[in-house]
């Protein structure tokens, strides 16, 4: 028999290349979110040109920070094959705990230390999640449902239940300090606060971890198939503690920003935010089953959800419809992802 040489260009790419459109989406599932985002912005701008003025853009930017930080954390945990729904409780505990610490114990605490303290609390609580998920071998969903109640309970029982309205001046200053201010048409001054920068910085940091360090690949490895990853020498314990700890740290950061921006600390804050955040991450192309997704996609998902939450009012759609739109988008994106996977499986 005349066997072809084994260096033949192996046929590892079936019909895929021909369908360029599916090929495009195959590599970059977040394209669907990008298209939805562009379509919405286009439609809204067409109906109500005031959308593209500075004040609504600044509103969106400001509103995206907290959900964005949470989403980057959720993305990290999802990529590692877990899920975290305790982050709102972590954010609230860090926010309220740090605020009351500064008010009652250390009023002169420098802002940078306040931020670091909050991040540290968040990272510690997140690491507790990681230790439990790894040690108990219990699904992350169950563990974080448990710790969510636990963290929120600790906050309410041991730290406080009343709203803190007299916030420390350094936090208020941080929340007000603006990157730039402009006079809007209506005569109102709009300013983009400096804390907005935290979101892009966190996104770039997360991107760096995922694409330039071994940890990023290890997170994907564990999320892809934890048994195989363990056999290949990846330390599952380290990876899980890192992923949950990192998500916790971002939640702590989100907490301190929320308190500074709103000039108050509400121990019941963030309750119910988790589904919206997970939705944003999934719209960004990460699979709920782990091992996939990109930071860029996550940012797109966050922007999409924020835009829907903020601009529908501009075109006269009542805010009660936001949920309908977000729900429809999630189903649309999910249907699209499934279709794409079936296409590539053929």
């Amino acid at each position: 028999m005349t066997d072809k040489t084994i260096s033949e260009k192996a046929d590892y790419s079936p019909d895929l290349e021909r369908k360029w459109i599916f090929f495009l989406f195959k590599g970059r599932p977040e394209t669907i979110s990008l298209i939805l985002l562009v379509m919405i912005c286009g439609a809204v701008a067409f109906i109500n040109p005031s959308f593209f003025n500075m004040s609504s853009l600044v509103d969106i930017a400001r509103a995206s920070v907290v959900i964005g930080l949470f989403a980057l954390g959720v993305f990290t945990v999802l990529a590692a094959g877990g899920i975290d729904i305790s982050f709102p409780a972590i954010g609230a505990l860090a926010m309220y705990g740090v605020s009351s610490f500064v008010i009652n114990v250390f009023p002169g605490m420098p802002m940078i230390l306040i931020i670091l303290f909050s991040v540290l609390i968040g990272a510690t609580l997140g690491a507790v999640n990681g230790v439990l998920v790894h040690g108990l071998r219990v699904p992350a969903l169950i563990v974080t449902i448990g710790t969510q109640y636990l963290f929120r309970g600790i906050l309410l029982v041991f730290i406080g239940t009343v709203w803190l309205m007299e916030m420390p001046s350094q936090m208020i200053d941080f929340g007000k300090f603006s990157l730039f201010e402009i006079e809007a048409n209506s005569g109102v001054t709009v300013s983009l606060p400096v804390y907005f920068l935290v979101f892009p910085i966190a996104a770039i940091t997360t991107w760096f971890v995922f694409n330039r360090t071994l940890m990023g690949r290890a997170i994907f490895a564990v999320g892809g198939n934890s048994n195989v990853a363990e056999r290949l020498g990846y330390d599952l314990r380290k990876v899980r503690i890192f992923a949950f700890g990192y998500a916790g740290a971002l939640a702590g950061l989100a907490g301190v920003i929320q308190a500074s921006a709103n000039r108050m600390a509400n121990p019941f804050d963030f309750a119910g935010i988790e589904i919206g955040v997970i939705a944003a991450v999934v719209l960004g192309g990460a699979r709920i089953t782990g091992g996939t997704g990109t930071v860029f996609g996550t940012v797109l998902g966050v922007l999409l959800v924020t835009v829907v939450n903020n601009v529908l009012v501009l075109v006269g759609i009542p805010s009660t419809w936001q949920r309908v739109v977000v729900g429809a988008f999630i189903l649309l994106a999910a249907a699209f992802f499934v279709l794409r996977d079936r296409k590539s499986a053929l």
Partner: protein
Amino acid sequence: MSKKPSSKAAFLSLSGIHKRFGGVHALRGVDLTIEQGKAYHLLGENGCGKSTVIKIMSGAHEPTEGIISLDGKHLNYLSPMAALEAGIETVYQDLSLLPNLTVAENVALGEQLVAGKGRLLYRLDHQKIKQTAIAALRKVGLEADQTLLGKTISDLPLAIRQRVAIARAIASDARLVIMDEPTTSLTRHEVEVLIEVVGRLLDNNVAVLFVTHKLEESYRIGGEAIVFRDGLCVAQGPIENYTRSQLAELMTGRSIEATRYRVGKPKNTTLLDIKDLSSGHAFRDISFNIRHGEIVGITGLSDSGRNELAMALAGHISIPHGVLTLEGEAIHITSPASAISYGIGYVPEDRLSEGLFIEKSIYENEVPLILNRILGKFGLLDDKKGRAAAGEISSGMKLNTKDLDLPVSALSGGNQQRVLIGRWLSINPRLLILHGPTVGVDVGSKETIFHAIQEMAERGISLIVVSDDLPELLQNCDRILVMSSGRIVENFNAEEVSDDHIYQSMITSPQETA
């Protein structure tokens, strides 16, 4: 790389190795020697200690007793790290690739992991990853262009994945690559490619140890046979010095005749007539008939359409065109349930994920098709009736246990297959389609499966056996149909055709014969 005879000194040797797991004495004093640049074939029935011994070589198990010599140094055990440092790599049956990472990452991340010394916040060296991946992929004959390097593993066909797994094994300086049943799910053509890849490794002075059930391939590759039985190495020597039946005898401790199992003859009446069956690109213009009690083998490369044809007849995929006539009556198979209603059963190739409820008991696995027969009062299941029925199936299939509550995951591959066949026999099928009936089954169990197949034919059941294993088809079938590019290209009488002849027609496309 030139072959240096001096480098062929013993690289790894085991002497007097014992391994006990609790009360089980898995290895009872094993001696064997591995030299670089040579091929080895670890042969033996399931449960003979083969996997225990490779786990000792790769550092996953610590021997209870005995000495491991590595480059002349005596050690009591090998840690996983020490095994890797010594260049001992294992390609497991599941390949252990990370499905969501790229080819380059799968091949070269291990090196980065070692370079990072466990610090996971270590900065990745993308240039090095690329270089290492390209070099290793070349050694397994894969053209490492940017497209391949960036492909995600889950997008690649199995045969390419396997080569990627081998590339990962040799990415760092491997001296021994252990391959656990590497050809189980490969087609003949892919096996040829693998054999060439192995040739390259041997030329590069790497030793290759196969754990395998496929003697055919071992003879083709050559090298040394290492035969295990009951936790002992009963023979080691050049494989060409042993005949097939000698090896089979060494493995089982009894002689197994490699003769034809088929003794009966089909009846002259036609059970199923298949005319002009077509289904998209999968298969075209398929026409043949099966007589009562006939055993028809179907083979071909994995893309020849044979798998799709088998699944279409069982109702797992739809048949857009063609006419099926069952005992003179036209039938339409639209789903597995409708196939079953016509008495057509299907035993899938991947019995673990498609056939068995693996964590459930033998009882629960044997009765699902006869639930209507074991109903008691109020239409509830009658446990007593069910157990009686399951017990009958177990004894009919000669299972090695009478315990109906044992999970099937605790059974050997051969016994699992018998549970599955027994389940189908419980509905007295007219046609049973067996897909790869002996994949992953040891020599001794193969024999009992073959006997079961022959008994079914004797009872008048017609069988279609879809398989890559040509000797198996030759030993069991009346006729062998060969498929290529979706068509039936040959219809051989199994008694008058040879292995080589069938293989030739498999790799010749219909266009060439036309």
